[in-house]
């Protein structure tokens, strides 16, 4: 399990877990889970297009994540947040269908993009994932307080001088970076569960924001590391364990929290 062919998996998965844990904290706090689901799914056609054109897949993912950020931000000026997000998903999936239809020999690749292929990670992927992840983490931590204030109340954020528009844009950009980092590893369907599971469990464990962020990273690492180990031992897919462990952590946090008042809504 710790053999040399597994080294890449451990390294990249660790970087992805840290990034997703940090960004995921704000996904949960800002109620942006839908966007966290849509950006990876919307980036998936980018990978298909890249393969069609014969360029690097990661390039396609980054390009479509960026398009997603621009598309959703623009649509948000006219529509409510979830409608804007859904409209982007509709457009992206339409393109994805088209691109997939144009390539015949793609089904194996599609499977990997949707569900990840953590055991097949090439060394060439390590550097780009590290760079993208580091940028996502740096921007999130830099904007920690403005993001927190804006999440608590956009009006308070605005009054403090953090413009509503650019905070939301910056957050979507971070989400896109996290997507690009995690998609090749855990797959388009699982990026979302890695961002939402550990972070929503962490909220139950503490009332301190910085500690909750740290716990989110710890749980995310625990999820990914356990998922890889369990998948290696059982031959079941990594994605199953990532999602299931997220559910387990959430349930455990929920049970621990039962003494306190239940969060409304």
């Amino acid at each position, binding site marked *: 399990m710790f053999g040399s062919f597994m080294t890449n998996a451990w390294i990249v998965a660790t970087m992805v877990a840290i990034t997703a844990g940090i960004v995921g904290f704000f996904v949960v*706090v800002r109620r942006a889970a839908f966007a966290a689901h849509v950006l990876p799914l919307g980036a998936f056609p980018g990978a298909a297009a890249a393969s069609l054109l014969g360029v690097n897949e990661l390039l396609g993912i980054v390009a479509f994540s960026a398009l997603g950020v621009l598309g959703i931000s623009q649509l948000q000026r006219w529509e409510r947040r979830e409608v804007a997000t859904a409209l982007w998903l509709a457009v992206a999936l339409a393109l994805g269908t088209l691109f997939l239809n144009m390539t015949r020999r793609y089904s194996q690749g599609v499977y990997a993009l949707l569900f990840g292929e953590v055991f097949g990670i090439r060394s060439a992927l390590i550097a780009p994932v590290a760079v993208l992840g580091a940028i996502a983490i740096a921007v999130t*931590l830099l*904007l920690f307080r403005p993001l*927190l204030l804006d999440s608590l109340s956009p009006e308070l954020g605005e009054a*403090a001088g953090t413009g509503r528009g650019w905070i939301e844009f910056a957050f979507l950009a971070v989400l896109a970076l996290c997507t690009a980092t995690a998609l090749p590893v855990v797959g388009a369907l699982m990026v979302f569960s890695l961002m939402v599971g550990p972070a929503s469990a962490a909220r139950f464990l*503490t009332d301190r924001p910085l500690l909750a962020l740290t716990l989110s990273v710890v749980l995310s690492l625990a999820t990914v590391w356990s998922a890889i180990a369990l998948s290696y031992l059982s031959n079941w897919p990594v994605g199953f364990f990532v999602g299931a462990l997220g559910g387990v952590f959430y349930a455990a946090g929920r049970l621990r929290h039962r003494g306190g008042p239940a969060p409304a809504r």
Partner: protein
Amino acid sequence: MTHSAALSVEGLSISLAGRQILKDVEFEVAPGEFCALIGANGSGKTTLLKAIVGLVKPDSGRIKVDADGSGGTSVGYVPQKISLDPHIPLRARDVVMLGLDGARLGLPLPSRARDARVEEMLQAVGAGDFAERRVGHLSGGQQQRILVAHALVRRPRLLLLDEPLANLDVRSVAEIVALLRRLSLQYRTAILLSAHDMNPLLPVMDRIVYLASRCAVSGKADEVVRTEVLSRLYGYHVDVVRVHGRVVVIAAHEPEEIRAALARDPVHTAEIP
């Protein structure tokens, strides 16, 4: 006089989406003064407060907020109908801290000076007992105290509160009013507080700004809240009535808008007893 005012508003006109909200509004608030901004729903109270914070651009007129030379913003603002999300892991103390440095970049580093200031503010608003609790789990009155501390922790010369008494029970209303009066004296902060009911504020207010028909009158409460003054402001006859120590403003006939709406919709007219 003009130089010493904590806030002076001159000839302020604002329209939103082509509709005139405020027309030629003028008033001043002196340092440390407790000023009530009274008007019915939709009379432009929120718009006026937002314009003072800088969140709404006026068409014309001037808003001058007395800066204390520190260069930073000297306005504290508690917006209307804020609901604090119980899903966010954030203690009451953290919200006050964000009032101090919420716009700063980077992670908050430990700072004794900051902690002392936050602690003092928490004590000042009587939030010592629930400072460590998650802010979304506090009662409405407790949340209002925390929001006041959030807005005051930077020691602004002017504190704006938009309907802070709405949705509070009678006891909390009295407590918050008394707290604000004490804070304005303690920190010499001028307060401009909007409300649709002036009664809880009458014992503490130094000045009233009354908004109606897009215009404003201001002065001492007993100069402004009078039948002839408010009738002139509304543009039709209203009666100022005192019952059981409470002041009520009653329109002798339906305002223009209501009569016009009723005329357009005769079905509803029939249902009104």
